[in-house]
């Protein structure tokens, strides 16, 4: 399982303040902690960043890669900011991941960026209209995005299909649709398409003390269906323990008594 650490987000007050003040320390600490905890990518969510977005993303990428030898997942709707980040990204530790394209026309540019900068790309199976109703509808959108990716010259193995995880507390029936979509996405190509989720969306809106439990159980179900990657909190030890244990059951890692410590 590929772990994409979610903690560096403009939504978090501490991160937002550090971004505004261009204070690298809190951001570097969060990046290093997530990397040490097992994150393979560090998500860098600067939001729409309408003002000085390019400057901000460039500064974020450089600050984080000073302390972390890992590729980054660049998370913004601002294409110019994204490109500025891709230009300074150090590919020595892996190719960057773009978060994200979708079936909305204003997100097509992300595929152009992926092709131009040899980056991988997350594709959210979301169209112009309402939310996808079920797994089949998600697959239909995925197929459209895959065709477009091919037009832009993005190889299928560089695409991570995201079924769009919704809140269990308000849209309970969507939880199982997303799980089924993860299974069905893989069948859209040979070799199977890669899949990714924004895990903690599932527990948005539920009481705080229940969030980790809900994330944990949901992750196990998704992994059983072959999920390739998750944007999640690697600093949640209970969540990481469940992930490692599920990897043991699925035969992805070799058992040893100390497997939780690895």
């Amino acid at each position, binding site marked *: 399982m590929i772990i994409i650490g979610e903690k560096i987000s403009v939504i978090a007050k501490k991160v937002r303040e550090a971004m505004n003040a261009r204070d690298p320390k809190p951001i570097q600490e969060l990046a290093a902690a997530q990397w040490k905890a097992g994150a393979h990518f560090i998500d860098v969510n600067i939001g729409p960043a309408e003002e000085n977005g390019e400057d901000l993303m460039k500064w974020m990428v450089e600050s984080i890669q000073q302390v972390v030898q890992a590729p980054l997942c660049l998370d913004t709707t601002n294409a110019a900011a994204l490109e500025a980040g891709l230009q300074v990204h150090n590919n020595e530790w892996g190719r960057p991941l773009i978060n994200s394209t979708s079936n909305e026309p204003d997100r097509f540019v992300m595929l152009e960026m992926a092709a131009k900068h040899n980056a991988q790309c997350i594709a959210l199976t979301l169209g112009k209209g309402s939310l996808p109703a079920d797994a089949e509808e998600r697959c239909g959108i995925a197929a459209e995005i895959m065709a477009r990716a091919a037009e832009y010259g993005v190889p299928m193995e560089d695409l991570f299909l995201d079924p769009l995880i919704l809140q269990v507390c308000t849209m309970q029936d969507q939880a199982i649709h997303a799980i089924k979509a993860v299974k069905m996405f893989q069948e859209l190509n040979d070799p199977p398409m890669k899949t990714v989720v924004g895990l903690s969306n599932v527990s948005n809106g539920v009481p705080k003390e229940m969030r980790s439990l809900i994330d944990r159980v949901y992750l196990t179900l998704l992994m059983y269906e072959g999920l390739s990657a998750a944007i999640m909190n690697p600093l949640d030890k209970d969540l990481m323990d469940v992930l490692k244990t599920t990897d043991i059951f699925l035969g992805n890692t*070799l058992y040893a008594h100390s497997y939780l410590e690895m």
Partner: protein
Amino acid sequence: MSYVIPKESYTGKVLSFDFGKDDRAVTVGGENTLPFLSFEGQQPNKPVIAYEIQDCPPDDWPDTVKEAYKDVSGDPVAWAKHCQDVLNAKAIALRLLSTHPDRDDRSAEDAAKTVKDVLAAVDVPLVILGSNHIEKDSTVLVAAAEAASGYNCIIGKAQEGNYKTIVAAALAHNHKLIAMSELDINLAKQLNILITQMGFSKEKLITDPMCSALGYGLEYTYSVMERIRLAALAQNDPTMQPPILGDVGMYVWKIKETVAPEADVPEWGALRERGIAWEAITATAMLLAGTNLLIMRHPAAIETVEKTIGELV
């Protein structure tokens, strides 16, 4: 339509280390493919064979292999020099067998002196083995590690019951270390984790999943080694990426096929050829399963296996 060879590519890679000193040092490991699949990846270092000698006369070895060393085996220094100078050994494995309580129960100090004498007499890299007695090895190997300080040896075997003191000694005197478990891949992984958690680098470890002779459980050893390699390469499991050791000779030269005289079993053919072939075939199977360093006894078997390695790499 032309045939395209299907190729696997792996995310993981086997670690490599060198042992010995200066221009006689040898490197083992480093491949990023299953053994000898040169069309899929690189295997930068050939598997190495260490000639096994011991610190007391090989009374319990069968005649075929005893005969090969009859003029030198009374003295470990003469034996080591013979392996290096006459047989062109690339490495030597000195087993401190006399320290075993059921053998001569010689002291750790005696063992340390033997190690020093052998190191002074030869230039080739040395593997230093205890007598495989859990308690005794934890004192003998500590003394041996100190005596060999600065020679960049491989010492072992560290096992679940004694690894702490042996790891500490290897760490203090900068040696490579054999981590041995008994035909259990999960325990092999666990031991490697425990050893690295003591601050010992995984880049200085070699895994011994326990050997066995053809006809006596070889398939278990083969399977464990193969699964270790697949975990290292396909799952990119860092705890399973150290090179692998095959301690072949001691398992082969005690079974009835290498001991039974022609008079008793004429249908088995000539005793000498039979024993040599048995060791060579067992060792070759270990190579195919992923072994990077072999410990062997008979010069003719070693010559055969070295020729095979030369043809495969």
